[in-house]
C-alpha cells in the first residue's frame, strides 16, 4: 500500500523546503518539492535605481552571498552596454572563485556529511586506526592518533552531557550508514576543522569586498575596491600577499582534506551512483572569463546545454529559450495564462491557494510551491556543479577531463555513475578543486596589472543615469556554487521596470509544469529506496546532493504535533 509522507523542514539547507513523497514497497514512487516561503523582492525592486539592485538582490541569499550581486550588475551592464576594466574582471573572478570553494566545503562537511557519516559511531573508533586511514589517504599534517583521540574525547564529553544540541534526534544508527567507526571519526574531525577553515579563508571577501556575508564593493561598471601599490588605503602588495596566503590555505585544505575524504567515503556508497538521476538534462551558463574580450568565449567553465545525457553533443545555450511556468506555483499571471513566459515578461503575483496553516499536507494536485518552474525549450534542466562539470568535460576542458577521469578511475566506475546522487556530490568536489587551483592565477594577474600601473577598477562612463537610453533590457548570468543563475532586467526612464531572477534552486527545486513534467528534485527522488519511512535519511541524501538554497528559490516535511509521522494511505 502506498503511503504519503512529508518532510518539513528539510534541514541543513538554505531556506524553507518541504518534500512530500509517496512510498510503496520501500521505494519512492512519487514526489513533490515545495518551497514554503515568499518575500517578493522582485516586486520591491520595481521603480528603484538599477544601480542599487545588486544590494537588494544579494539579500536573496546569505549563503550564496555575492552571486546575485554578480548576476545583477552583469544584467545592468548588459542592458547599458558597459565594458568593465580588466581589474574588475579579475577581482570578481577571485571573489566568485573563493565563494565557490568555501561554499562547497561547507556544503560537504556541514550540510551533507551527516547524511553519510554517523557521529555517534565515531565514539567507538580506535584513534590509532583512524590515524592509519588518514595517513594512507593524505599528507595533511593533522593525522596523529593523539589528534584523533583529542577529537574523540571532545565529542565524548559533548555527547556525555546528554544535550546534543544540533546533533540531537538525528538518524544515528540508521541501517543506511555504512562507514566504519574509524572513518566516521576522521570525518567528524574534519567537520570541526572545516568550521575553522571556512571563516579563515573567506577573509578574502573582507579584503576585496569589505565583509562576508554580503560583501559591499560590487558596482555596476566594475568594483568599488581600489587598487594602488602606493596607497595604504587600497589593494597593495601587502593585501596581495595576504590574499595569496589565504588562497594557498584554501587550496591545501581542498587538496589534502576535502578531496581525499570524498574519495574515502564514496566507495562505501557506490550504490548511490545508480540513485538520484534527475532526468539527464543539464544547463550551464559558463563563467570565469579568462580575458576581457566580449562574449563568453574565454570562460574557464564553458557555456552549454546537454539534453538526455548526450555528452557527445553539447548544444549552444540560448537564453531566449528559457521560460518560467507557474501552473503549479502559488502565482498567477495577469493574462490568466500560467504557462511558460520568458523572464523579461515574467510576473511575480502571489496567489496562495494552498491549505491555511497549520496544515498536515499540501494539495499536491493543485498549486503547491512558492518556486516557479523554469524550463529550457520546454524541458526541466538540472543546474549546479554536476551540470557545470559535465558541460566542461563534454566540451573538452582539459582540467575537467583530467579531474573527472581521475575520480572515476579512483572509484572504479564509469561516466554513467555521474548522473546520480553520488555523481552530483563528486562533481561538487571536482568543481571545487578546479577553482581552488585557479584563483591564484587571477591574483597574480591582478598584481601584474598593478605593477604596470593599470589601476582602473570602475568604468564610470555610464554611471550617470542621464547617459542611459530611455529603455533598455539586459541578461546577467553567473555560475553560482549551486549552478546557473540568471537575472533579467528592464530599465525605463532610469528606473527598474521589471526584474526577474531565475536561480539555480528554482531550476532544481521547481514543481511540475503545465505539461505535468516534474522538476529535477522530484525526478531524482523517484526510485530512491527508503528503508524506514519514519526516518527518511535517503530523501535527505538525494535532496542535499543538489545543495538546496530556497531563500533563493524552497522544507522535506513530515507533519507536526506529537505523532512520529503523518502517514496517509492513498
Amino acid at each position, binding site marked *: 500500500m502506498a503511503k504519503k509522507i512529508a518532510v*518539513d523542514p*528539510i*534541514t*541543513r539547507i538554505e531556506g524553507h523546503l518541504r518534500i512530500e513523497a509517496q512510498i510503496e514497497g520501500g521505494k519512492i514512487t512519487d514526489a513533490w518539492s515545495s518551497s*514554503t516561503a515568499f*518575500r517578493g*523582492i522582485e516586486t*520591491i525592486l520595481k521603480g*528603484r*535605481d538599477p544601480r542599487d539592485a545588486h544590494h*537588494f538582490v544579494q*539579500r536573496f541569499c*546569505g*549563503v550564496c552571498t555575492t552571486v546575485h550581486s554578480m548576476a545583477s550588475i552583469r544584467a545592468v551592464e548588459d542592458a547599458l552596454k558597459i565594458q568593465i*576594466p580588466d581589474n574588475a574582471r579579475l577581482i570578481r573572478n577571485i571573489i566568485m572563485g573563493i565563494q565557490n570553494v568555501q561554499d562547497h566545503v561547507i556544503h560537504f562537511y556541514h550540510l551533507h556529511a551527516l547524511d553519510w557519516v554517523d557521529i*555517534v559511531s565515531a*565514539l567507538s573508533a580506535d584513534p590509532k586506526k583512524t590515524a592509519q586511514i588518514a595517513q594512507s589517504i593524505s599528507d595533511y599534517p593533522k593525522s596523529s592518533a593523539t589528534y584523533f583521540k583529542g577529537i574523540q574525547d571532545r565529542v565524548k*564529553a559533548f*555527547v556525555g*552531557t*546528554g*544535550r*546534543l*544540541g*544540533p546533533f*540531537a*534526534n*538525528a538518524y*544515528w544508527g540508521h541501517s543506511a550508514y555504512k562507514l566504519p567507526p574509524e572513518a566516521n571519526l576522521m570525518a567528524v574531525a574534519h567537520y*570541526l576543522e572545516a568550521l*575553522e577553515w571556512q*571563516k579563515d579563508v*573567506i*577573509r578574502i571577501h*573582507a579584503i576585496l569586498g*569589505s*565583509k*562576508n*556575508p*554580503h560583501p*559591499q*564593493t560590487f558596482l555596476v561598471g566594475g*568594483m*568599488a575596491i*581600489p*587598487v*594602488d601599490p602606493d596607497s595604504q*588605503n*587600497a589593494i597593495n602588495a601587502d593585501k596581495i600577499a595576504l590574499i595569496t596566503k589565504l588562497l594557498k590555505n584554501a587550496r591545501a585544505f581542498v587538496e589534502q582534506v576535502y578531496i581525499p575524504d570524498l574519495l574515502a567515503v564514496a566507495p562505501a556508497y557506490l550504490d548511490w551512483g545508480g540513485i538520484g538521476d534527475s532526468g539527464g538534462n543539464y544547463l550551464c551558463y559558463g563563467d570565469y572569463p579568462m580575458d576581457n574580450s566580449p562574449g563568453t568565449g574565454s570562460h574557464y567553465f564553458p557555456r552549454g546545454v546537454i539534453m538526455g545525457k548526450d555528452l557527445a553533443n553539447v548544444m549552444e545555450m540560448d537564453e531566449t529559450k528559457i521560460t518560467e511556468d507557474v501552473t503549479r506555483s502559488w502565482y498567477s499571471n495577469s493574462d490568466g495564462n500560467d504557462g511558460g513566459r520568458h523572464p523579461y515578461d515574467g510576473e511575480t503575483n502571489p496567489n*496562495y491557494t*494552498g491549505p*491555511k*496553516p*497549520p496544515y498536515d499536507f499540501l494539495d499536491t494536485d493543485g498549486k503547491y510551491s512558492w518556486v516557479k518552474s523554469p524550463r529550457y525549450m520546454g524541458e526541466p534542466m538540472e543546474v549546479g556543479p554536476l551540470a557545470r562539470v559535465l558541460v566542461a568535460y563534454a566540451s573538452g576542458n582539459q582540467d575537467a577531463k583530467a579531474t573527472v577521469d581521475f575520480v572515476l578511475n579512483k572509484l572504479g566506475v564509469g561516466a554513467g555513475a555521474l548522473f546520480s546522487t553520488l555523481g552530483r556530490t563528486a562533481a561538487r568536489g571536482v568543481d571545487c578543486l578546479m577553482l581552488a587551483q585557479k584563483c591564484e592565477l587571477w591574483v597574480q594577474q591582478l598584481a601584474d596589472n598593478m605593477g604596470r600601473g593599470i589601476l*582602473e577598477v*570602475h568604468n564610470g562612463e555610464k554611471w550617470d543615469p542621464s547617459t542611459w537610453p530611455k529603455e533598455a533590457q539586459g541578461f546577467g548570468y553567473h555560475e553560482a556554487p549551486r549552478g546557473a543563475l540568471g537575472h533579467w532586467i528592464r530599465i525605463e526612464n532610469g528606473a527598474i521596470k521589471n526584474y526577474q531572477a531565475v536561480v539555480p534552486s528554482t531550476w532544481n527545486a521547481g514543481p511540475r509544469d503545465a505539461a505535468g513534467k516534474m522538476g529535477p528534485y522530484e525526478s531524482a527522488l523517484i526510485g530512491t529506496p527508503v528503508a524506514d519511512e519514519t526516518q527518511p535519511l535517503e530523501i535527505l541524501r538525494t535532496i542535499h546532493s543538489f545543495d538546496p538554497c530556497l531563500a533563493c528559490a524552497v522544507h*522535506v516535511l*513530515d507533519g*507536526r504535533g506529537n505523532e512520529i*509521522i503523518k502517514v496517509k494511505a492513498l
Partner: protein
Amino acid sequence: MMHDPEKSLREGSVSEEILQQWEARGIKRRDFLKFCSVMTASLALPASFMGQIAEAIEADNRPPVIWMEFQGCTGDSEAFLRANQPTAAELILDYLSVDYHETIMAAAGHHAEAAKHKTVDEYKGKYIAIVEGSIPMGADGAYCTVAGDSALNIARKVCGNAAATIAVGSCSSYGGIPAAAPNPTGAVSVSEAVPGATVLNLPGCPLNAENLTAAIVHFLTFGKLPATDRFGRPKFAYGKRIHDNCERRGHFDAGQYAEGFGDAGHRQGWCLYKLGCKGPETFHNCPTVRYNEGTSWPIQAGHGCIGCSEPQFWDTMTPFYRRLPQVPGFGIEATADKLGLGLAAATAVAFGAHGVASALRKGDETDTKVKKED
C-alpha cells in the same frame, strides 16, 4: 568536564550521590533514571553510557538556544559561523546548547520539530530564542511556513516563552528587505509580531557576528540583556554614529572627497560622502569592530555605508549612491552632521508608527523574563 568518562563506562550505572541530588530537587529517581535511559537510547549509545550522561547533565549548565529563520536569507546564520571570539564551534559545543537551528542541525522534519518543542517545554522561560528574518502577516501566514505552521504562530509560541529573544539582522529587528516598500507580504519585526516578548535587536545586513557573541557573553556573564537605545539596540554596539568613529573622518573635515570610484582620492582613502555614504546617519560599531576577525568593513574597502543597521534603511537610505541631502525626506543642502540628526528623527517617527518602541517597554517585568540594564 568534571566527570570521568572511563569510570562511568566501566560502571555503567548512575551513582547514588547523583540520584540523591536529583531527589533533593524533587525529581524521582525512577524518572531521572528513565530520562537517562531514554537519552542514552536516543543517542544510540550503549547502556554503559547512562552513568556518564547522568553525571554530565549534573555538570552542564549551558543555556538552551532555539534559532529560528523565517523570511531570511541565512546571512545572519552564516555571519554566526564566522564568529571568532568565541568561535562558532566553541559556541555550539561548549557555551550554548543550540537545540534547534535548521541550517546546521542533523535532524530533519518532525524529528527536528520535536527537538524544538522539547526545549520549549522543558526550559520554559529559560531558553534564548534567536530569530533571523522577518515575519509575514499576509495570506494568513502562508508566505512563510515551517512544518506546516506559520512563522507567526511559531514565533509567538517560541519567543513568547523564552527568557529573552535576540533578533539577529535587520529583517527580524525591523522588517528589513521583505518590509521594504511596497512590503508585498506584510512583513514585520519580531517585536511587532510578538508584543510583550523581551527582544534585543542586533540589526545589520547581516549582523556582525562579534556583536552577537558579545551579547551572548554579556547574557552569560551578567544574567541579563545589555542596555539598549530607543530602537532596542544594545548601546555597546550601536551607541555611536559611524561618521564619528570613521577612519576617513579627517578627510571629511578637510574637505577631501573621492569623486569617482577608482580616482586618486578614492585610492587614497578620502571621504566617500559624495559617493553616497550613509555613515553620517548610521549608528553601528563597524569602524571599530569591523568584520571577519577585524579584517575590514565597507568604508575601509572603498564603498559607502548603506545604513543597514537603521530601521527601514531599504527605503530611507536609497538611492544608495546619491549623497545624503538628496535621499527622500531632504529637500535642502545641509551639512552631514545636521543631516544625521534629521534622518534619525525621521526614522524614529516611522518606527514609532509601527508601535515597536512601545512594545519594547513592556513585557520584561515577569520573573522568568530577563531584565534589561538601565
